[in-house]
């Protein structure tokens, strides 16, 4: 369900801050009675969320402690197995090919940081370039650069998978045209192209290129917006003081847009950590499960494995990890907020 422009958790978390009026001198029942209309407005949303979200989550907690499999779809009375599912996951004792929880988690973290690093550096560099005074064709460049954001992420992933085809893909055809080594088995070669980065096979780079393509316009747009708020006078003052362009960038631009970039970076981290479409559709987690991330592994436990109990436990583990990341990122964004 990850849309390209899902608005960020950190942005939203900031809005929780507005304080609720303290009614502590009025009784709870009285408060509820006074706000009857409010509850009537919330009721439809509450009902839908209760049936499709809250109930499944409770059900998921129960399933996580049972040996629920495909058989139980017809006869939903699986046996209670205690913490077995959780222990099996942490010990990689799951009957699914190439299942390795710790490798998947490690890979997911590495994948996230490398991606966001490229998104941010490319995004800021393009925003700064387009923000140069009297730069020709700004709007033209901008509308072309923003195209990857407008294409649905899952179609992007399918197109890039096709482009990484060994024999007929555009990437290898282009490499051949440029006289570079081609015939690279991007998606099937399990060996790492860079030796000291031994856990990153070719398909990691294929997914990385796809996801960088998909994500840099967002950072560019956020950085462009942030640059508008940097006062021009600062640069003039810096020039008078004899600061070089490099100094101006590192001493003025970067510190001033950092605060505006932080929430977007937090969003980028969570978004990339859960980038199902790119991993599942480009590499499929392969070869040999080397590029599996948590959300693709969670999906495979349901389809094709049909291990509903294990999948539920796995989902809960993912949920706890995400909750942890959110709390940390929320703390970081709040920290920046108090500085301003």
């Amino acid at each position, binding site marked *: 369900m990850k849309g390209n422009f899902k608005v960020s958790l950190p942005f939203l978390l900031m809005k929780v801050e507005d304080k609720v009026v303290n009614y502590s001198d009025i009784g709870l029942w009285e408060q509820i009675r006074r706000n009857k209309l409010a509850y009537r407005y*919330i009721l439809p949303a509450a009902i839908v969320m209760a049936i499709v979200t809250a109930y499944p989550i409770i059900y*998921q907690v129960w399933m996580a402690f049972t040996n629920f499999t495909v058989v139980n779809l017809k006869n939903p009375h699986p046996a209670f197995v205690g913490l077995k599912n959780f222990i099996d996951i942490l010990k990689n004792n799951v009957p699914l090919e190439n299942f390795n929880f710790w490798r998947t988690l490690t890979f997911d973290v590495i994948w996230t940081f490398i991606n966001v690093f490229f998104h941010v550096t490319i995004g800021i560099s393009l925003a700064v370039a387009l923000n140069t005074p009297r730069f020709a064709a700004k709007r033209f460049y901008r509308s072309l650069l923003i195209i990857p954001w407008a294409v649905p992420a899952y179609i992007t992933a399918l*197109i890039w998978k096709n482009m990484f085809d060994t024999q007929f893909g555009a990437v290898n055809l282009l490499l051949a045209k440029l006289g570079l080594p081609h015939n690279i088995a991007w998606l099937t070669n399990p060996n790492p192209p860079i030796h000291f980065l031994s856990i990153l096979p070719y398909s990691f780079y294929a997914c990385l290129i796809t996801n960088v393509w998909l994500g*840099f316009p967002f950072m560019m747009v956020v950085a462009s917006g942030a640059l508008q708020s940097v006062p021009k006078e600062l640069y003039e003052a810096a020039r008078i003081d004899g600061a070089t362009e490099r100094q101006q960038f590192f001493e003025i631009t970067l510190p001033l847009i950092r605060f505006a970039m932080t929430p977007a970076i937090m969003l980028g981290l969570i978004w990339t950590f859960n980038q199902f479409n790119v991993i599942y559709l480009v590499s499929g987690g392969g070869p040999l499960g080397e590029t599996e991330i948590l959300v693709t592994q969670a999906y495979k436990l349901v389809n094709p494995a049909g291990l509903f109990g294990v999948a539920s436990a796995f989902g809960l583990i993912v*949920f706890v990890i995400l*909750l942890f990341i959110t709390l940390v990122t929320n703390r970081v964004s709040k920290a920046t907020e108090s500085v301003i």
Partner: protein
Amino acid sequence: MKPKVKVKFKHLLLHLYVIFWVAVAIFPILWVVSMALDPRNISKPTTLTLIPPGATVDSFKRVIAHPYSGANVTFAKLLWNSTLVSGGTAFFSVLIGATAAYAFSRFKFPGRQAGMVSFLVIFMLPASAALAPLFVILTVLHIRNSLIGLVFAYTSFTLPFAIWNLKGYFDTVPKELEEAALVDGCNRNMAFFKVILPLSTPALAVTLLFGFMNGWTEWMLAWTFLTKPKSFTLAMTLYNMVGQWNTPWSNFAAFSILVSLPIIILWFLLQKYIVSGLTLGSVKG
């Protein structure tokens, strides 16, 4: 004279840098268009050409005539299903989300904070991590294999965003306008429908677009839940097409253009709102 030359040189380098990234950004698009226009109906391309010799739109005609190789479903049927699912998701998430967002924005009631935080936590949960129980529950309710079940599931995934986005926007609408309406004899409901909603068109548009895009491009839940070809959506048909080895690439390219075009057009029409909403949020920091 010398500093002027220096500035020109700097601009030239920056243009080269920007043009490089423009090329990266449009390369896949050109590749897909060129594949779709290939007249030879060969299964795989062998050269890089922008407009292949004798370009035709035959592949578009082919995929519209036979979109799904496994069964006899028409393109019109798939289009209808996709429109129904995405339209339904967009409509319900805005309708239900707007009322809840209004309550969160204007009333200070017990459970407000808890409600907002729990919507947020749910918002964060990836669909694939909640797949197992959803599959079982919708199966037990006998709506798993239907478009209604799909709209239901999608709405629950888009609602948290809808509520948060609309609440944020309602907060910026001045309370005085509403109070004036209340003094003039409106009740709360009329104030909501006649004052707040008309003033919130940009936020409503973005929320609708978000719901529509989600419904239009989601394939993973649909592929897991639906088994009857006559209730397939365009997105899952495209996914299925990639799984088939014998599908000519020109068909795949044509079909992906057909599926993504409505979204790209909508995105560019509403771009101003999307971008301003996002950058406003971040600049406010």
